[in-house]
């Protein structure tokens, strides 16, 4: 196993009777990386996660989590991996701290260590003042944060988050994504699954797009954009100056310039031409008001990919039916 990879899956397969929920998928997650499993409901994301944790049998293929085999050494895996299930539940009649204490005892932390870890973790996710409140009174966002606190308390090396942002309002989502970025800064690898593509796009280093139990596409969002959207960068410029459009056309790599409004231009290029464009504007003594490159959006990538391959979309649909 490569030292830099915390999760390695090769040909991972899960069958329920004749239905295939996960079909020979292979991927790796590097140390300190945020890896996104994205795709529609029923595409096999949760099943993949449960196989990584040893919570469901593996029908075929090999998987290694931190060097352990989840099927044979589930305790070693579960001791080092934190899991936030889809719509996580807590014991409503117990307080937040008591819920955490139960988990801490199950992990086997000693008493003094336990209280300190719990207090630190609740503080990190901003729930310190609610530690004594019953979880029954918590909002959905607070429950999700409590779930993340549990992973922090555990001191996990990998955090596996299943649909962490679903059903949250934008503010709660932003808070949650900030905590997830915090994981990365501490060297914790994060594997998260979501069907909300754009929400998680901003935090993921790499993503795997699932469809019908297979990984359709994998890589960084920018790479996928180039691969699927036919490559090319789109640079928007807002500046004034006569003949600017003509000057910009001459920049090597620019394939076209279109006017999108008064003083607004859009460049299509095969690389990031922002520096050259800025130089041109300044050289013309023009006033540069805006210069930006459009990030490819996962939504666009996803839609375009399945438009281009109706057969793939077809498998995605039947796959979803099987898994449901």
């Amino acid at each position: 196993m490569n030292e830099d990879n915390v999760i390695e899956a090769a040909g991972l397969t899960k069958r329920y009777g004749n239905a295939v929920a996960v079909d020979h998928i292979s991927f790796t997650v590097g140390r300190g990386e945020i890896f996104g499993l994205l795709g529609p409901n029923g595409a096999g994301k949760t099943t993949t996660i449960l196989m990584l944790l040893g919570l469901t049998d593996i029908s075929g293929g090999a998987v290694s989590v931190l060097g352990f085999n989840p099927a044979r050494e589930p305790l070693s895996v579960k001791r080092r991996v934190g899991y936030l299930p889809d719509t996580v539940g807590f014991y409503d009649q117990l307080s937040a701290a008591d819920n955490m204490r139960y988990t801490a005892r199950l992990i086997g932390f000693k008493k003094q260590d336990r209280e300190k870890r719990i207090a630190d973790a609740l503080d990190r996710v901003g729930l310190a003042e609610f530690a004594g409140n019953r979880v029954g009174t918590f909002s959905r966002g607070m429950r999700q944060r409590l779930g993340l606190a549990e992973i922090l308390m555990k001191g996990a090396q990998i955090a596996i988050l299943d649909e962490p942002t679903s059903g949250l309002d934008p503010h709660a989502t932003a808070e949650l994504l900030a905590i997830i970025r915090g994981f990365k800064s501490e060297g914790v690898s994060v594997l998260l699954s979501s069907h909300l593509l754009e929400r998680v796009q901003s935090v993921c280093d790499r993503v795997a797009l699932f469809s019908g139990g297979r990984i359709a596409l994998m890589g960084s969002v920018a790479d996928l954009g180039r691969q699927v959207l036919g490559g090319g960068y789109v640079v928007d410029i807002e500046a004034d100056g006569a003949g600017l459009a003509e000057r910009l056309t001459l920049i090597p790599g620019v394939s076209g310039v279109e006017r999108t409004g008064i003083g607004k231009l859009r460049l299509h290029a095969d690389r990031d031409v922002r520096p050259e464009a800025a130089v041109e504007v300044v050289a013309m003594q023009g006033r540069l008001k805006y210069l930006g490159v459009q990030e490819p959006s996962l939504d666009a990538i996803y839609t375009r990919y399945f438009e281009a391959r109706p057969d793939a979309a077809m498998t995605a649909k039947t796959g979803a039916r099987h898994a449901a």
Partner: protein
Amino acid sequence: MRREGSAFQGLGVVVLKELSDHLTSVRMRVLEWLVVLVALAALYGAIQQIKETTAEDPFLFLRLFTTSRDPLPSFVSFISFLVPLMAIGLGFDAVNGEYNRRTLSRILSQPIYRDALLFGKFLAGLMTLAISLITLWLLVIGLGLLLIGIPPGAEEIGRSFLFLLVTIIYAGVWLALALLFSIVFRSAATAALVTLGIWLFITFIWPVLAGAVAQIIAPLDPRYTALGLPTPATAQAEHILARLSPATLFAETVVALLDPTTRSLGPIYLSQLQGAVLGAPLPLSESMLIAWPQTVGMIAGAILLFVIGYVTFQRQEVRA
């Protein structure tokens, strides 16, 4: 393929948590009050009855448990009625409750096996029932001392203590059944209804049905009927069928333990009674011998039900 580590890692933690949940739950408090009030009523009736009878009885103290006075049934009948209800009340949402609260996958992603969770839940339920029953037992003995005024002998204490143990085992059978249905059915209401339905069937309908089915298996012999005697083969079949029900097993065990004059729990021929002094009490060890097969039957039933539940739980998907 061998799994690493012990299947019981985290068992103690689960037991303590479930036990504290049970003991603080409103449901448990209601059940406890129900049992205490009902038991007091039965005890009151029994004591009134005992005070009126002047006949000497070497086992007067045991009469506390078995004597009834109209319209109240005896303490033992109340217990055999209420213990299954308590056990079902504690167990019917043990596992499906975790699914419905969506806590199961979070708990199982901690370094424990499913074994520890299920076994912990069963043990905690059994301990809760044991605590309630021991309290009730002490209460009955204490009240008996105060109200009758005759201290119980060592054998009476021994017999009533064995009765307590058997009652806990009987509770275990129903707890295992409730746990099994809490695994099989995702809805707690369905699990509760099915378990209660089975309890009603086994306790009230099966004893009647056993007689009818026995006559089909071994038809009545007209020669015995003409003499007004039961046909031996039919009686045998009826007994075997009735003993499939844990309620019958419990009733028989209790009779053997609390009534020292019980010599047999099945039909016997007159020839087998030759030389026996009818009505003379048996020593405790002999009564235990009579009750032993029934007790083992109940333990085996509890283990069987638990194992079926265990296997089902191991094969279940954890995703809700």
